[in-house]
């Protein structure tokens, strides 16, 4: 491979959190990891179909960033959004049932893996059109601003989306109108098989965002401490009325793009190098070194995650199929419910 991506040095320095908070974040990373490992297995077994994009390796981003938000905030995500949905507060049961296509899923089985939605937690979905979520996020933020609501809209998207017109149009609008959007760019260095160096003339994404006149900062997406601390500060600035802000999370996808990807475009050694920087084990090692985490405690968190996954699979298995007669419901508002 003529483009190489080296992993950053392992995170260091003290973890500035109390044990309770550190445990919650570690637990969430484990929940995502275990849920997705199981999902891959279930895909092999034919229980989950269609496209399945795993987040394995990138967990620190969703967990660190979403824990910096408040319940009244909005979240807009991509098709690689199982983790975001889970941390935002969707039950693992409803996510798993959705991936099974069951009616008990968070979108009644109509959306599947790429289209998780939940109004209660203001989770505006998995969007499977690259860049499609960005203008939507600008609009949600416009509504919040015009209605004087204390509400930040966090919009997640990949490095690949930065090349789309929608990225540029949405950033410009958000900056022009000083909208409370937190643009969260998960730069895992590839859009499908295309390395960022082959897609972007300017690979410093903060320079691009900065050109629209908004603050832009970059953080180590493999380090949950850096992700959380920087996102918390960024969200506070957006909330204070500074306008939109762009955060780049430098991260890495350990698995294939989707279940159909032969991974011809990157070297195995590169993947292995980044795996040594896996966000779960580096965080675990730091907590242990500081005496904040004992091995039994780690095992207990992991066991709880696995139990939750097992229960979610049972829930999804036991779920029902939406009757075909109901398929046409909700295409539009039924006449009797319309004003």
């Amino acid at each position, binding site marked *: 491979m003529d483009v190489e991506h080296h992993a950053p040095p392992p995170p260091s320095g003290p973890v500035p959190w109390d044990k309770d908070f550190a445990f919650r974040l570690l637990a969430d990373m484990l929940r995502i990891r275990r849920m997705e490992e199981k999902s891959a297995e279930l895909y092999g077994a034919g229980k989950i179909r269609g496209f399945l994009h795993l987040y394995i390796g990138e967990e620190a981003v969703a967990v660190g960033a979403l824990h910096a938000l408040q319940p009244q905030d909005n979240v807009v995500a991509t098709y690689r959004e199982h983790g975001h949905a889970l941390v935002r507060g969707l039950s693992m049961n409803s996510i798993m049932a959705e991936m099974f296509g069951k009616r008990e899923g968070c979108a009644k089985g109509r959306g599947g893996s*790429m289209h998780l939605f939940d109004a209660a937690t203001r989770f505006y979905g998995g969007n499977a059109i690259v860049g499609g979520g960005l203008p939507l996020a600008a609009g949600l933020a416009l509504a919040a601003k015009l209605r004087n609501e204390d509400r930040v809209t966090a919009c997640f998207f990949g490095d690949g989306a930065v090349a*789309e017109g*929608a990225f540029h149009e949405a950033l410009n609008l958000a900056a022009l109108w000083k909208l409370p959007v937190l643009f969260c760019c998960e730069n895992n260095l590839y859009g499908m098989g295309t390395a960022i160096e*082959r897609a972007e003339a300017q690979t410093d994404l903060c320079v691009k965002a900065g050109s629209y006149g908004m603050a832009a900062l970059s953080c180590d997406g493999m380090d949950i401490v850096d992700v959380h601390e920087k996102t918390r500060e960024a969200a506070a600035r957006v909330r204070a009325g500074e306008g939109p802000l762009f955060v780049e999370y430098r991260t890495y996808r350990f698995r294939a793009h989707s279940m159909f990807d032969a991974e011809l475009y990157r070297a195995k050694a590169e993947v292995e190098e980044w795996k040594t920087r896996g966000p779960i084990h580096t965080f675990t090692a730091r907590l242990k070194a500081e005496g904040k985490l004992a091995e039994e405690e780690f095992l207990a968190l992991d066991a709880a995650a696995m139990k939750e996954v097992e229960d979610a699979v049972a829930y999804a298995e036991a779920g029902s199929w939406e009757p075909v007669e109901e398929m046409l419901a909700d295409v539009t508002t039924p006449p009797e419910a319309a004003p």
Partner: protein
Amino acid sequence: MTRRLSYREAMREAMREALQNDPRVFLMGEDVGRYGGTYAFSKGFLDEFGPERIRDTPLSELGFVGAGIGAALGGLRPIVEVMTVNFSLLALDQIVNSAALLRHMSGGQFPVPLVIRMCTGAGRQLAAQHSHSFEGWYAHIPGIKVLAPATIEDARGMLAPALADPDPVVIFEHCGLFNVEGELPDNGDDCAVDIASAKVRRAGKDVAIITYGGCLPKALAAAETLAQDGISAEVLDLRVLRPLDDAAIAAAVAKCRRVVVVDENWKSGGLAAEIVARIVEHAFFELDAPVARVCAEEVPIPYAKHLEEAALPQPDKIVAAVKGLFA
């Protein structure tokens, strides 16, 4: 002598031949190179033809389709691959407002010899945003030619005449066909087919099933079932969705006097509606029964398998529609 190959292999061979035969031809699109093509159509091409001619693009559908139009104007013969019809919506402005209009709008000075290929259709549980069929929309637009290869022969043979065409040609490849295999006559290098006519894929006399693309195998399966019930169905594969082969449609109507149009587009304002309108305009008095349509249900295509199947045309629905004409 014949040889057996898949739709995917046929497309790949066709592109390889075009790249070998004409230095002006190049392939451009998302993940056509290093990834090996989203559907492995261009696997190995990067090594064989190099990065100048096998050009990976950023995720910028509007930009690279527009660049393809410019390159065509500038003397090249681009094959622009838009990963799927779903993402072609981001490029629609360039296709409609530039590619399709330029020749006429410039008083005939600027034809756009461009081929745009894209995968279309549902059936793989990819959910609503990845399951569109917009062939009917494209067939609405004067200035472009729209092709829907549904057989191995057409997958292999349509690209060369499309590239030779002086105007923009959009080729829709249905995602459900890629692994279908078939026999191809061993004509050596001459695989080209015409890109003007519809073709009868099964002869019959009681009812004409008019279809194209991903619905062709379903229509043939329905015809087989109908044969067992004593109904002889003719299956007409449109192949070219713009301009439509009116003569072939009229001939099928005149011969069978009953017609079912099968189309994966939504029914309202879809391509099937256009075909029915033409039949009513030109062959009304040939009909022994009202024309029936089997189209996608008017719903975003759902993820769950049983719902997706229910939302799409299926052989049993086609059989039922045909029998309805004899009731």
